[in-house]
Structures are given as structure tokens and as C-alpha cells.
């Protein structure tokens, strides 16, 4: 998922801690997070968690046990949900649906072929995970009961999340991939929603757009060009062009630009060259650089409605009353605790 330039961007990440994020407003890429929950919170043979009616509850489990861990640590979360996908994403979505169908078939096969070796079917089960409308509805309902605000994006959730940060309504974007940086988010934190998982392996890390720009010697526009060359959710990328080659291409274009005196002329030329290489170049570029966003949203962190959470999770979806009550108690304690301020507030 996302643009294929993760590797060179990740090189500029630095470790962080939950404590360093205390009191910060984090715009969470909901689609990405729910997908993580659905694909990882499973039984050993890959079967997702379900209630007695057979409905999947992996996403609810992730929200109630992991997300609340972050709330208890004093993070202020906002979940940003995808709006209408761009038409250019149709190819990617179709390919994903095919991969899911294939994974589902292989999973069924593996369950029959290797009943004694559940790990063989687990990866297929994971790949078959899908964030569907029911999952999104459930998540919004539970988050509302937990007092966590939800924002509906006009288009891409990550673009909306980046917009929240640009506007100053949030401080960082939480996502596993780096598209938010391309959408203009100044800081992205990875592995946040995995924090609080029982066997978490991945450490928390942050990536700053400015640091990436400085290290690679590229502007955000050029970073977008780079991503377009290697492939994004909205275009397949140029055949035979990997990250290294794309970096060279984008940089040489920068040089020609410097040599020319008439800037507009060059930009036109530059775009001209990329347009020849990439189908829909201008359209894809616009998705990243002038994304469609919603400006009418409200962020209110409400009180936890403990009774409604219990009703929804324990009565409707068979969660353990004891475990859920424990979590709710933990959050209500947090509400009474004091919060550590950061020094830069006085700079």
C-alpha cells in the first residue's frame, strides 16, 4: 500500500517514545490502522476474532485494547476516515481485491492441506483482510463512545490527516506508510497503533518531511515526482525505473532547471519530460500536491461513555466484561491525572 519510496524515506527516521508524544494531537490514518488490526489480530491459524454470531471483531479488539493504551498515555487521537477514492485508484483497488480473493482461496486450501501447521495458513489469512463498510461503521461507533473524534475525509484519509496538521489542528500523522509526507504532513509517526500489542516488535519512529527533503536534497514537489516515477496508489510507475534511477532523473531535471533562466519555461519542460514517461502525470501530481480535503470538521474529545462501550462490545459482540471494564477504568484514571507540558510551548 502507498507509494513505493518507503525505503529511502525510512532511512531518515528517528526513534521516539510514547512519553515524548504525551499530550500531542495525533491524526490517525483510520483505514491503515484498521487494516493493521484486521490483518494481525488473529488466531494462530489465521482465523480472525469473531463474536458468537460469527462477525469479525479483530478491529474492535484493536481499538479497545491498543488504542485506549495510547489514550491512557495521554495522547489525543483523531481518527481520519477515507472518503471517496480517486478514479485513478481503481486499478490498485481492483488488484487488491484480486489479491484478497487469491489469498482467501489459498488460505482455505492451506487449512485443509496443513491442518497441523497453522502458521502456513496465517499469512494467507492476513492477506485476505479487508476494511469494509461494516468495519468502518463499527469503528466509528466505538470511537465515538470512547470520546475519540472521527473526521471524514473528502478523498484520501492520509491527505486529510496531513491537512489537519498543516492547519495546526493536529501535530503528527500516524500511519504505516509514508504517503502522508507526500500529502504535506510535516511529521509522520510509524508503529504507533501497534504499541500496546502483546508481542510488539516494531519500535516507534518518527519521520520529518523537512529532514527527508534536506537529506535527499529534494523539495516536496520533487519527492512527489520521485514517487510517481516508481509508482503510487494512483499510477503504476515507469517500467524499469527503480528508486535510484528515479532519484537521478528527478535531480537532473533540477539541474536543467537551474541552468535555464526562465523558470516557467523550464518547469514546463520538466513536466513535459515526465508527462511523456507517466500517464496521467499532472492528475497524479495534483492528487498529492492539491488534494481534495474537507474543511468542515469538528474535533471534540468527549468523556468515555462506559455503559455504551460495554453494551456494544460485551452484549453485542461477546467481549469479556471484566477485561473491558479494566480498560475503561484505566482511561478514567488517566482523565484524573496531570499532564506533562513541553518546554517549547514557552519558546
Amino acid at each position, binding site marked *: 500500500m502507498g507509494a513505493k519510496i518507503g525505503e529511502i524515506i525510512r532511512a531518515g527516521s528517528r526513534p521516539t517514545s510514547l512519553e*515524548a508524544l504525551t499530550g500531542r494531537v495525533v491524526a490517525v490514518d483510520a483505514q491503515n490502522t484498521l487494516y493493521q488490526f484486521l490483518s494481525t489480530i488473529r488466531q494462530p491459524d489465521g482465523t480472525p476474532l469473531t463474536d458468537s454470531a460469527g462477525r469479525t471483531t479483530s478491529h474492535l479488539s484493536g481499538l479497545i485494547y491498543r488504542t485506549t493504551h495510547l489514550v491512557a498515555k495521554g495522547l489525543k487521537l483523531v481518527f481520519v476516515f477515507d472518503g471517496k477514492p480517486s478514479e485513478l485508484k481503481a486499478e490498485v483497488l481492483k488488484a487488491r481485491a484480486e489479491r484478497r480473493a487469491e489469498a482467501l482461496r489459498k488460505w482455505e486450501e492451506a487449512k485443509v492441506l496443513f491442518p497441523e501447521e497453522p502458521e502456513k495458513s496465517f499469512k494467507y489469512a492476513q492477506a485476505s483482510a479487508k476494511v469494509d463498510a461494516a468495519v468502518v461503521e463499527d469503528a466509528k461507533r466505538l470511537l465515538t463512545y470512547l470520546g475519540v473524534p472521527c473526521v471524514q475525509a473528502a478523498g484520501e484519509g492520509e491527505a486529510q490527516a496531513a491537512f489537519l496538521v498543516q492547519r495546526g489542528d493536529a501535530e503528527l500523522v500516524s500511519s504505516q506508510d509514508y504517503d502522508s509526507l507526500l500529502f504535506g504532513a510535516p511529521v509522520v509517526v510509524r508503529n504507533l497503533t501497534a504499541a500496546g500489542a502483546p508481542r510488539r516488535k516494531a519500535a516507534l519512529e518518527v519521520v520529518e518531511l523537512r529532514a527527508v527533503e534536506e537529506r535527499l536534497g529534494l523539495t516536496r514537489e520533487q519527492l512527489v515526482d520521485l514517487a510517481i516515477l516508481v509508482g503510487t496508489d494512483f499510477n503504476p510507475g515507469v517500467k524499469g525505473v527503480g528508486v535510484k534511477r528515479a532519484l537521478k532523473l528527478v535531480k537532473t531535471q533540477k539541474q536543467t532547471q537551474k541552468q535555464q533562466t526562465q523558470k516557467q519555461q523550464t518547469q514546463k519542460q520538466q513536466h513535459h519530460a515526465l508527462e511523456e514517461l507517466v500517464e496521467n502525470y499532472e492528475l497524479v501530481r495534483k492528487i498529492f500536491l492539491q488534494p481534495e480535503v474537507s474543511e468542515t470538521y469538528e474535533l471534540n474529545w468527549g468523556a468515555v461513555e462506559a455503559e455504551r462501550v460495554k453494551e456494544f462490545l460485551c452484549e453485542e459482540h461477546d467481549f469479556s466484561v471484566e477485561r473491558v471494564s479494566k480498560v475503561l477504568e484505566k482511561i478514567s484514571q488517566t482523565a484524573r491525572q496531570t499532564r506533562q507540558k513541553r*518546554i517549547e*510551548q*514557552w519558546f
Partner: protein
Amino acid sequence: MFEAKIDLGVLRGCIEAITAVADEGRLRITEDGLKLRSVDPANVAMVSFELQSDAFDDFSLELAGAVETEKEGKGEEGKETSIGMDFVKLLGILGIGGRGGEEIELKLDEKGQKLFTRMGSLAYTISLLASDSLRKDPKVPELEFPAQVILEIEDFKRGIRAAEKIAENIVLGVDGESEEFFMEAEGEMDKLRLGLRKEQLIYLTPPAEKVRSLYSLDYLSAMSRGISACHAEQLTLNLGKDYPLQIDFEVADGRGKVSYLVAPRIESE
């Protein structure tokens, strides 16, 4: 080229005071001495440090072809360089050096990005951190404190030590009306209050109204240890209401100073 000699105990105290807040940082070397300003990784506290060149037994700085920067306000050309230092590592090295009264020689090889140190018969070469791997120097916060207290170090340390036994946080405040400085902590079972009236303090600027702020003992305990390491005698505390705390004290017999700043904890909204 930078070369200097200084009392080992003095330098060790200073570095220990820095490590109360920052594990690493950019140490500026100027003709006037050493300077540092660094924020802790969680952005809760800041340390500012200055050690004048006359605190050293020898101090020479010659920078051939180095960047010359305009000295603020004076209009003269000032020379300076900066090195990325792992203070925790340096403190460990100074710890094996020997007893107080001994001298340490420092020599910077700018090209190799190494600092040579010699303590008697022990020579130790420290690899410096790449300057670009360090965070940018923090800005100077603009603060106006309604209350100021100058007190004996021992009084402050006693308050911190007592609070550590029962709580994670401590309140520091000044009651303008009764002209009293107080430290308070509350644990699950126990409560603690240390009150010092004006005559028990060295100096007090009482605020118009009562001010108090809550601070994490994680930070104040570390700072208290840093203060002890420098053998300072008195502390200046600058306070406000739900406001940062600034702690100033002198090092190297007044030829240097350390200033800590720590952000408060506040009741959650």
C-alpha cells in the same frame, strides 16, 4: 586548535550537571569559554551551561580557516567552533580519571573529529558525534517569572529527597501574603510539606498572588543530583503559576553557571 587544562573535579561536576537533562549535545567553544544549550529528548526540560575560559588553568583557541561569526552587540569578530559530545560517555571517562585536585588536559583535533584527553598517566581519545546528527539548538524561551527565591542548596535537596519517598510529582510555590516558599508532595497515603519563611531564605521576591506549579520528580531529582555534583551553595528558583521552573546556580567558584528549565505538569482538561 583548541587546547585546555582544567581541574578534573570541576569539569566532572559540570558534565554531571548537564547529563541531568541532556545525554548529548552541541558544545560551543568560543574565546570566552564553553557554552551549551540543550533540550531533553522528551522536550520537557532544557539545560543552559557556560564555563568561562578563566575557569580553566589553560585555555587556547585558534581556528585557522574556521567560520568567524559576528559577536552579538560588540561588533568584534568572535571565533568559535562546536563539537558534538556524548556527555554520558564523557562522564564515564572522567569518572575513571582519578580523584579531585587532579588536572585534565583537553585537545581537539578538528579534522579527525576527536577529543584527546589526558588525566595524569591516563590518555583517552573520545570520538565526537557528527554535528548534523544532533538536534538544532533550542531557542531561548521568553519567560516572566512572578516569584523568585534564593535558598541554600541543602534546603532544596531535603525537600526533593523527602518527596521522592512518597510521590512522583512535587509542587513548588510561593505564598505572597505570608512570604513563604513551599514544596509539597502527595502520595497515595502520605503528604509532605516543607515551608520556608522569608527569614529562612537568602532572598525572596514575593508574587502579588499565591503561585504554585507541579513538576515531575524524574526531572527535579536528576537536577538535584546535578546541583550536588557541582558543589554549589545557593540556588535561585524562578517560579510562576502552572509555569516552567528555572533553577540557576554557579559552578567553578562563580566562573561558570548552569541554568535548568523544566515544564510543569498541569491538570488535564
